Every structure is written in structure tokens, then in C-alpha cells.
């Protein structure tokens, strides 16, 4: 019970800290002091207190989309084992629900962007839809392959891969972690795919879709986006944390891995330029190829000699 409460606290608070740590890392590499790591949390509180400005051109879709965005992420989070190694809802093939609940949230954010009638937001929605369609299969391949090895198709089985499959397990772990890390950068709208810090509406992907959102809508969307990053990071953490670690150690390891991922994202953002929009596909295909490596390793392990 205690672990479940802890998981909930992590789910609600750590997304802000992740963003805060990424920004702090970027500030460090840029030679600046940077804002406090709690700044995203302060921003959230500030936005929650503000009044809405809603464009006259929008319909009800625009109003409900932010709520759907945050509730789908929260629902999806129930399927992911976080610090404790065990999810709140643990059903076979939870993966399918997880992916499509997130897909539903994304669908609403896309049509909400289209709903504003802005040409920028239409472009952003088109880019987001395009990239998602390539990311999604790769995600399925990685996670489903690992689950197939354990045979019970739950997220809890992720943590068994490193210990149970021998040298195959190590290889699978490496490629799965790489694929998921690239997925964080894509889904989290980070450099080199997107630039969360830019003010250039013509180059944005995720940021441009929420140009019209304000106040608590904006706060919920930003929170949800950060939470999504945390969920994918949690999958990485679960693959890396050994199955037999004690509760205390696994919580410590979990937080350490999340911290490491945040720092690495911040460093990647500082060290490289954003890639050209037309080259983003190539970048996403790298993730797909890692996913296929995982699949082939799993096939080799299960059916090979």
C-alpha cells in the first residue's frame, strides 16, 4: 500500500522535476545559473490561477481536449510499474490499452489543434501525426517482444529480462533502452526532434499545437506531456532494475535512473543542433531499427538453438 502511494506521488510530482532538471542541465552547459528545478512546478501553480482566453473560432473539442490529454496519461500511468516494480492495474496485454489510451489523448490534442483553424497549428498537428505513425509500431515491437519472452504479457515482466535471459538479456536490454530513450526524445518533443525552447512558430511541432491554450488548460497539457516522458523513462527504469532488488533499493535505483535520463536529455540538447524537419524520419527510423534488433534477439532466444 505504501509503495502504491509512493508511486502516485512520484507520478504527480516527478514530471515537473524532470523538466526542471533538464533545464538546469541545459543552463549548466550554456554557462548560466538557470532557474530552480522547481520552476516548472511554480509555473504550473501560476497557470492554474490564471483566467482563460478562448478563441471564438474554437468548438467544444478545444475545451475538452486538455482534460482528455491529462486523464488519458493518468489512466495509462496505472499500467506502468514505477518505483515498486508492480503496476496498479496488472492485466495481460495491458500494453495494448496503454498504447491506445495514449493514442486517444494524442488524437484529441491533434483535433483540438485543428479546431483553432490556425495554419500553424494545422502544420504542427500534421507533423505530430506523421511522426507518431512511425513511432507507435516501433514501441509495440520493443515492449511486446520483451513481454513475449516472459510469456505473461504484463509490464511487470519487463524487470525479468536482464536477469532471466543471460547474455541475450543484456543485448536485448541495451537495444530496448536505446530505442526507448529515442522515443522519449520524440514523444517528449525534445531536441533533436523538436525544440521546446523555441519561439519560432513555423518550426515547432508540439509547442505550436498548444499555442491557443491558456491557463489551467495549458498547465494540464504541459503536465501531461512531462508525465508521458516519465512513463517512458519508467519503462527504461523497469528494464534496468533487477527483479530481486529490495523495495528500498529499487526506489533509490528508480529515482537515480530518472535523474540520469533527465541529465542525459539535457546534455544531448546542449551538444547538438536540432535536425532538419525533413530528416526527422531518418532519426525515427533509427528507433525502429533498434526495435527490430530487439525483436530478432527475442526470436533467436525463443526459437533459436
Amino acid at each position, binding site marked *: 500500500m505504501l509503495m502504491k502511494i509512493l508511486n502516485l506521488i512520484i507520478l504527480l510530482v516527478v514530471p515537473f522535476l524532470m523538466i526542471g532538471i533538464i533545464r538546469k542541465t541545459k543552463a549548466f552547459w*550554456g554557462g548560466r545559473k538557470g532557474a530552480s528545478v522547481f520552476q516548472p512546478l511554480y509555473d504550473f501553480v501560476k497557470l492554474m490561477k490564471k483566467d482563460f482566453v478562448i478563441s471564438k473560432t474554437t468548438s467544444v473539442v478545444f475545451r475538452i481536449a486538455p482534460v482528455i490529454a491529462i486523464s488519458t496519461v493518468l489512466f495509462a500511468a496505472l499500467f506502468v510499474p514505477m518505483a515498486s516494480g508492480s503496476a496498479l492495474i496488472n492485466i495481460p496485454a495491458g500494453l495494448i490499452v496503454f498504447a491506445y489510451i495514449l493514442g486517444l489523448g494524442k488524437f484529441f490534442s491533434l483535433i483540438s489543434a485543428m479546431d483553432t483553424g490556425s495554419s500553424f497549428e494545422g502544420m504542427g498537428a500534421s507533423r505530430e501525426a506523421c511522426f507518431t505513425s512511425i513511432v507507435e509500431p516501433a514501441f509495440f515491437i520493443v515492449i511486446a517482444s520483451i513481454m513475449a519472452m516472459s510469456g505473461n504479457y504484463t509490464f511487470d515482466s519487463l524487470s525479468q529480462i536482464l536477469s532471466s535471459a543471460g547474455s541475450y538479456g543484456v543485448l536485448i536490454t541495451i537495444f530496448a533502452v536505446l530505442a526507448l530513450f529515442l522515443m522519449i526524445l520524440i514523444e517528449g518533443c525534445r531536441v533533436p526532434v523538436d525544440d521546446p525552447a523555441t519561439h*519560432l512558430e513555423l*518550426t515547432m511541432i508540439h509547442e505550436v499545437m498548444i499555442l491557443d491554450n491558456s491557463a489551467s488548460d495549458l498547465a494540464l497539457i504541459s503536465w501531461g506531456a512531462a508525465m508521458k516522458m516519465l512513463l517512458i523513462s519508467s519503462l527504461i527504469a523497469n528494464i534496468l532494475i533487477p527483479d530481486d532488488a529490495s523495495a528500498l533499493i529499487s526506489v533509490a535505483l528508480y529515482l537515480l535512473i530518472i535523474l540520469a535520463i533527465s541529465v542525459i536529455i539535457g546534455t544531448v540538447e546542449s551538444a*547538438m543542433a536540432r535536425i532538419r524537419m525533413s530528416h526527422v524520419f531518418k532519426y525515427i527510423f533509427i528507433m525502429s531499427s533498434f526495435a527490430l534488433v530487439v525483436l530478432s534477439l527475442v526470436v533467436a532466444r525463443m526459437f533459436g538453438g
Partner: protein
Amino acid sequence: MNWLKTKNNTKLNLSDIPELRMGDLRKEIISLNKRPVAFFGKDWGLGRVKLFVVLADDKAGELYVSSALFAADEKAYECITNEIPSFHIFEREFYEDFGIEPLNHPWLKPVRRNQDKYPFFEMQGEEVHQVGVGPIHAGVIEPGHFRFMCNGETVYHLEIMLGYQHRGVEELMLTQPSNQLAESVCGDSVIAYNTAFSQVMELLKGVNVSDKAQLIRKLALEMERAAIHIGDLGAIAGDIAYLMGASVFGVTRTLVINTMLEFSGSRFGRGLITTGGVNFDLDDEKIERAIKTFAKVEKDVDRMAKTMLKNSTVMSRLEKTGTISTERAIEAGFVGMAARAAGVELDSRFDFPDKWIKELDIENKPFNGVGDVNSRFKLRYKEVMQSLSIIRKIFEKLKEFKNEPINCGYEVMNKENAKDAFVISIVEGWRGEVVHIALTDGSGALSKYKIKDPSFNNWFVLALAVRNNGISDFPLCNKSFNLSYCGNDL
């Protein structure tokens, strides 16, 4: 004689300038085929309009001046643009100001007025969409409307509609000409504008400027160039989300403009230059400090630029983005940095050299750009280095003129202007040539003041540069030119 040949920074008598019929002048312009520097009308009384043309032979360092008189009932002429495309923007401006129509002009659209009647180029089709940006933009920049005709992510055509910053500067110059007004025309080219204005006024008033003041002006001009180029290198890095470049160049630019603050009390050099000289002297202590600062600037810019040019992710963004071919650059009459980056060696510092180019032993190596964002990045880097070396030489030279006066007193502005004069001054600002032309009437009062910013020629470059590029690369192309809205709108 159909042309009056002259040099930069000269005073001509209005009566010496040949006056032709427009038909003849048009033939002359086409047969001479030189680069247009100015092409503007002046109200000549009784409904008549006089058109002045200044062409430049950059290799020989010579200017050609001529004019044509339009009678009150002459309201059209056959346009020159179809023969020499670089006249397109000049003829548009002339039409807008005086209503004299260049017939068969292929792109006769407003320049800085009548935006509500702007005829946008239209495209139709299933996949085609339009994206309108501005006039109010994200971030703190000037107003201007951009309309993209796109096919998916690819830009077919970009229309740029300006004029939101039109303040009537040229008219104001007639009633209250002052250095303060000149340096407010375009906030990032304070020194270039003020130098050009001061030179025009000094020629009109027959004042000579001391060597020391000339050197300080030149110093300020190169500092302005270095500061803006470094800032723009940082902005290019920022646009491609290369954080380190944005931070380092941002910090380094501050060092340069803070030195300017120390010299003149303004980071952009406002109030430094005055008609007849400069307002602030440099003592040894200030110079020593500046030399140290610039040594650091040079080191930092060099290191950061080299790091960026080695980074593959940066290069993949800069190379082959927003390319302008050399032929296109010559044909459309681009000037300054934009032209040099496309392989057209145009630099009025060296094309119309003053005595200091020789005395300071400043050499100009050709750049051989290929016209993409990468070329413009490298050109800015090269010019920062060049400016810093010129600055070093000027500091050295300044020691020889310790006891010279820096200006000729503040009564200079009250002196009488030469009568019936035509004065032209071209200064190479960081963007390109800043052209100031003043005409006086029989009483010596200013009767026409014409300003041409390099952006006036160059806005069309941006439209050409983004064709067939991704729309998401537009901000990067834009930043690599960093054209002026207020310099165009006046």
C-alpha cells in the same frame, strides 16, 4: 554628356547633372548596364517630377549620375525592370511615391504604403496551403507580414509585405535634419546611418573632419559590424537549437557593445557621431581596456565558430539551406553581406576606398561564397575577424593623433548649406551599403533627402532563398540575413 561621373562622398551642382527625356535615359541606363544605387523622384514644381538616377561602377569606384524630367501630363514610361531586373524595387518605389507608372513592370506591388491593396500571389490546388505570419511576431522583432504558399512542408513562394514601420523619415529630414534623427532611422545601424548623414552635412556645409574623428568613426563602424555579426551568429545557433553557440556568442556580443557603452555612453553608439566630428574622445586607459576586451572577443568567436563548423548536426542544418546563386544575386541587384555570401564581391569600403584603407593597410580577401546559410554564417565569422583586425590597427593609429580636435564645435549645424547642391554619401554598414543623398534648393535649404538601406534591395533575397526549402527552415534563412524592417519602411 548623358552622365555625370563622380566619386563617393562628393558634392555636385544640380545644374551639372544632365537632364534627359525619360526615353533617352532609359536607353542610357540599359546600355550602360551598371548597378543602381539610387533611383528616386523629386517634385519639380508645376506638377512636374524629376527623376534622379545614380549608378555605380564598383570595380572602378565611380558613380554615374543623371536625371530625367517628367512633364505634368507624363504619367507613364516603359519600365527598365524587364531589361535590368535589379531596378524592380526602385521602380516600384518611384511609382508609389509619384504615381508615374513603369509600364509592363512584372511585379508592381506596394513597397511601404497601401498595404490594404496588396495583390498577393495566389496558388491553387488540393495540396496547396497558405500560411500567414505577422505583422505581429513571436519574440521582440519588428512588424512585417509574410505569406507562404506551400505544398505540404515545401515553400513555393513567399510574399513579404512591409510598410508597418513607415514613419516619414525622409520628410522629417527636410524640416529637422539632425544626427539624433539619422541615428534613429535603423536601430542596429546607428553608426552607419549617422556617419552617412554627417558626411552629407559636412559636404553641404564645407566642413572638414579631423583625422582623429574620422578614425573614431571608422572604429565605431567596425565595432558595430562585429557586434551585430556576433549577435547574429548566436541567433543562427539559437534557431537551430544549438544552445552552446547561442550562449557563447550572446555573451561575446555583450563585450563588444559594452565597450561601445564605455566609449559613448550608449551600447549602440548613439550620440557618438556628430556633424563635424565625434562627441567623445578616447583616452589611453579606455583604449588599453578595449584592446584587452577585443583580444578575448577574437579568441572566443574564433573558437566557438570553429566548434560549430565542425559539428555535423549544425552543418546539416546550415549547408544547402536557403541557397541564392551568384547569377541570381547579380541579376536581382542584391548588395552587401547577402551579395558577398552569394559570391558577389561588393563592399563599398573597398570599392569606394577612403584614404584609411591604404594608410591602415587593410586588405580584402575575396570570400567566394556559395549563397547558402552556411556561407552567410562563415562570411559573418570572416567579417568579425576582419573588423577586429581593423579595430586593432585603428587603436594603433590613434596614438599618432593624440592632440587633434575631435570635432569642430557645436555651431556647425547652424552653418549655411551649399546652394543648389546634390550630395551623395555611401557607407558600408554591417548589412551593406547605406546610401544618403541630399538636395538643396536656391536658398540652401534641404529640398530632398533620400535614404537607401541595403534591406531595400535585399528583402527580395529572402523570398528567393526560401523557395523549395522547408517552411521550418524559414526562420533560419531569415536570421542569416537579418534584414531591417525600419530601414526599408523609413
